[in-house]
């Protein structure tokens, strides 16, 4: 095939182009879409074995709603805060020596900590700022009471703080390639036109980075939304967030295990993220119109 003679656009490319994505779709079809289909099928089976939508009706209960709002709250707050602090940290790293030891160690540490969670992460935090934690006691000795109005650590605020521990490194890792793409020419251009740092960030670098920033925030949202191992270890207060409900319904040993309802909940979670994704897509289209 003479590559130079073949145009990149136009021609009879449509049927052949689709071949390029076939391997991806085959793989994803078998290992992701098929299991999702199995979950969907399971959610349509009532406890007595008949096909019905009763499992979805089971979501309509007060303590389920509470789980929904709890999950949405934690996921939104930890993803936005994690995105902001993570972007700051990523900036600090990206502006250093790309081959330096600092960058390597921060990247590696971020890779490790981004996947850290569960019982031991919870323990680490409780040992630090729990009611017997040494930071809490150290502050108390100096007259600073961290929990004047009750121990917020054991409520959603505390869980959000713990979530930041793996949200921030995740943001650093997925956002840094975007920061690496910033060119010095942009800064020079701004300055040669008489702009200062504020102009640079507000009108040049900011809008260019915003689509990536938004995409990374979405990732953080989904990450927090489905994380349960950490909450599972911290809270014995029932299913305060959705994944805990799903887990309880799948693995309860007190006889209230209900796989059908668990699957319905899982589908509901997918639906929520779909909605969030649509909002994100809308925002993205608005802000990156002039980029494409």
């Amino acid at each position, binding site marked *: 095939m003479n590559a130079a003679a073949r145009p990149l656009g136009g021609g009879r490319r449509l049927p052949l182009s689709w071949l390029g994505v076939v391997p991806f779709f085959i793989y994803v079809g078998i290992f992701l879409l098929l299991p999702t289909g199995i979950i969907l099928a399971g959610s349509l089976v009532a406890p007595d074995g008949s096909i019905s939508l009763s499992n979805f009706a089971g979501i309509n*209960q007060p303590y389920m709603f509470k789980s929904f709002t709890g999950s949405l709250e934690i996921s939104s707050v930890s993803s936005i805060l994690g995105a902001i602090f993570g972007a700051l940290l990523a900036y600090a790293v990206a502006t250093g020596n790309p081959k330096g030891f600092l960058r390597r160690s921060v990247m590696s540490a971020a890779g490790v900590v981004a996947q850290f969670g569960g019982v031991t992460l*919870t323990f680490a935090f*409780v040992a630090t700022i*729990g009611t017997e934690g040494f930071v809490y006691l150290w502050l108390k000795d100096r007259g600073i009471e961290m929990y004047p109005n009750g121990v917020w650590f054991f409520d959603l605020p505390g869980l959000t703080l713990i979530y930041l521990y793996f949200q921030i490194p995740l943001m650093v890792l997925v956002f840094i390639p975007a920061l690496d793409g910033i060119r010095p020419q942009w800064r020079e251009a701004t300055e040669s036109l008489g702009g200062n740092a504020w102009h640079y960030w507000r009108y040049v670098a900011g809008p260019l980075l915003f689509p990536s920033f938004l995409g990374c925030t979405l990732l953080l949202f989904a990450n927090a939304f489905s994380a349960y191992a950490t909450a599972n270890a911290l*809270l*014995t*207060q029932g299913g305060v967030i959705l994944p805990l409900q799903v887990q309880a319904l799948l*693995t309860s*040993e007190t006889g209230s295990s209900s796989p059908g309802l668990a699957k319905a909940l899982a589908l509901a979670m997918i639906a929520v993220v779909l909605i969030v994704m649509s909002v994100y897509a809308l925002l993205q289209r608005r802000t990156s119109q002039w980029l494409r």
Partner: protein
Amino acid sequence: MNWHRFHRLVFAAATVIVVAACGSTSTAGATDWSKQTSASGGGGMDALVAAAKAEGKLTVIALPPDWANYGAIISGFKAKYGIDITSLNPNGSSQDEVNAFDGTSRAPDVVDVGQAVALANTAKFAPYQVKEWNDIPGGAKEATGLWYNDYGGYMGIGYDSTKVPAITSVQDLLGSAFKSKVALAGDPTKSNQGLNGVIMASVANGGSLDDVSKGVDFFKQLKQKGNYVPVVGTAATVKSGQTPVLFEWDYLSASHGKDVPTWKIFVPSNAIIGGYYSQAINKQAPHPAAARLWEEYLYSDEGQNLWLKGGARPVRQAVMTAAGTVDATAAAKLPAVPGTPQVPSGDQTSKASQYVVANWSAAVA
């Protein structure tokens, strides 16, 4: 050829052939251990041991090493029979155990599950009766051997005596000395242990096995007073002092003694809630002979005494005490049980669970 030598040759050859044939039938052909309902039915204990050794492996699940001394039981079995044990999902719940029956060669052979899960999953078990079958009381086993109680204990309140005053009743926990100190060892909406803790609190506060609402109310009060710590109690949280008061099965509480020498256990005399776990064999066990040998080991005097050492009350304890085969020192270390225990039935547990699932997070979150 010399006739005499020929005779000897033929005789030797015949012997070899016969021995080989006998050897192969005893390990592969005649006894299908997955169908045997007792050791004697398959040719006796020796045949069982030989078949198990031939299988060479056993897969167990959800047996943490410090849970009722399972660590020692597993190493004891390995040492006695030379059979390798793979221990899956040590932190798993009873439901996890049954969910792991997937028909592959990696599935667990035997399970140790709570009452509710045992009753709900009898279709997945293979019936088997250990040698000491008659020592197990009638109410503690399924008639054909699908499941049978192995050990149990009572719900207690473990506490570090250097951090809180001695506990003499459940209501003591509402006092100001217990601020941010009281925890559960599991989430009552999904953990059997957590649920029984709430049931115990209910019975101690005027409720009953049929009425768990008083227990939920009690924890609500604990939370309002600031005494309740919603962290899951583990060995680490006990050792670090985050959960100095913990609602836990007494045999599990006993294991904290090695981290906190001043750990004591209190079982309220007006609310002795007992809970027994049950053994069962996977119908599609990848190693059926090893599975059955494991059960024989667990119910032998050696196995039962190892459980006793772990602070649990093995199901054959009464019989063994009468026969004098019980480990007396271990038995003496068990917390005194000042009264008659009550054991929630399957129905009572389900009802309690439904109430807790619907009302717990509103009470304590």
